[in-house]
């Protein structure tokens, strides 16, 4: 993930939103993606990502420079999304709302790949929607950001053993649900390439 420059942090700490804008620019993609994976639609993801950066801006004095800034931001985003899901009880995501019409996915796919991509993304979101809020956050942190168990634990305020056992359960759920989303697994999936 991107890392932060010390000068950005110093000027942003003085409360200048323009200075913090550089941080927003640099981290918008990972933060937005986490919110999208958690909430399942672009409108909520935009809202949540904006709010995440606002909270980070307001709480910049609480950031410990010894830790990764990106992980700190993702932690704020995850907590906010979990809270939002709890409030909305938005556990089942509708297929239509999964993909934004006006959002440009990155990298921009050719028109012939767009339908495939949309279906693939929708399937991923449908898969994630089978998980509980915290487990979803753990899976996203693990498979999109390659965060260690320790980093995930710190970000979500739980122990490493809790992260391990919940990720294990989440993987079981994802494997179980794979067939309902995709039909039987393709033959290649059986060959283990570690």
């Amino acid at each position: 993930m991107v890392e932060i420059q010390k000068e950005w942090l110093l000027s942003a700490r003085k409360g200048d939103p323009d200075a913090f804008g550089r941080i927003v620019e640099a981290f918008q993609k990972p933060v937005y993606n986490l919110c999208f994976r958690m909430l399942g639609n672009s409108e909520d993801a935009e809202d949540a990502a904006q709010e995440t950066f606002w909270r980070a801006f307001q709480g910049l004095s609480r950031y410990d420079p010894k830790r990764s800034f990106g992980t700190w931001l993702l932690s704020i985003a995850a907590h906010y999304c979990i809270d939002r899901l709890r409030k909305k009880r938005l556990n089942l995501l509708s297929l239509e709302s999964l993909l934004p019409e006006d959002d440009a996915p990155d990298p921009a796919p050719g028109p012939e790949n767009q339908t495939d991509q949309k279906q693939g993304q929708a399937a991923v979101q449908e898969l994630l929607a089978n998980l509980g809020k915290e487990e979803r956050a753990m899976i996203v942190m693990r498979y999109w950001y390659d965060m260690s168990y320790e980093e995930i634990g710190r970000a979500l305020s739980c122990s490493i053993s809790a992260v391990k056992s919940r990720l294990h359960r989440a993987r079981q759920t994802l494997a179980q649900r794979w067939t309902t989303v995709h039909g039987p697994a393709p033959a290649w999936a059986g060959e283990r390439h570690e």
Partner: protein
Amino acid sequence: MSRHLPFEDWIFADEALPENDLRELQRHLRDCAECRSIDQRWQAARQSLREAGMQTPAPGFTTRWKAMATRRLKTPGPAQAWIFLAATGLGSLVMAALLAVQTSAEGFSLTGVFSRSSTAVAGTLRDWANASNALGMVFRIVSRSIPPAWYLIAVFFLSVLGILGLLWFVRKTREGKK
């Protein structure tokens, strides 16, 4: 112990397995259809997560954030609003108290409800004034030197100011949250 253990755990293991374990797992997967199915599905699901890539926000995300942040920074915080409300509230109370002292001291009577309700305040205030004479004197002098009509105007003015302040604060807060 289940005959699928420790293979089930190994299937979902994130780290690469030691060579011996991997060989054992592969042998088990050949023989056990149940574990083979779980393994295939997990491999496929994991692959789809890995290939999903990053979703990006609509262009102009940073500009939208800056606009929102600037708007929110201009919005008065709850502390400012409370100070404002407390100041107008206190102003109204002082006015009412001054009027009450004047009313009770000179037997001045405003019509109806206002006069009756101020009597109670006046009673309390007289007791309080007796106890702290110096302050009471100042209070009486000030209260007598102001014509009664001014009190009404001042109370009216403070009330309007309070209501306007409250409306402004509510509107600003809503704007800021958008």
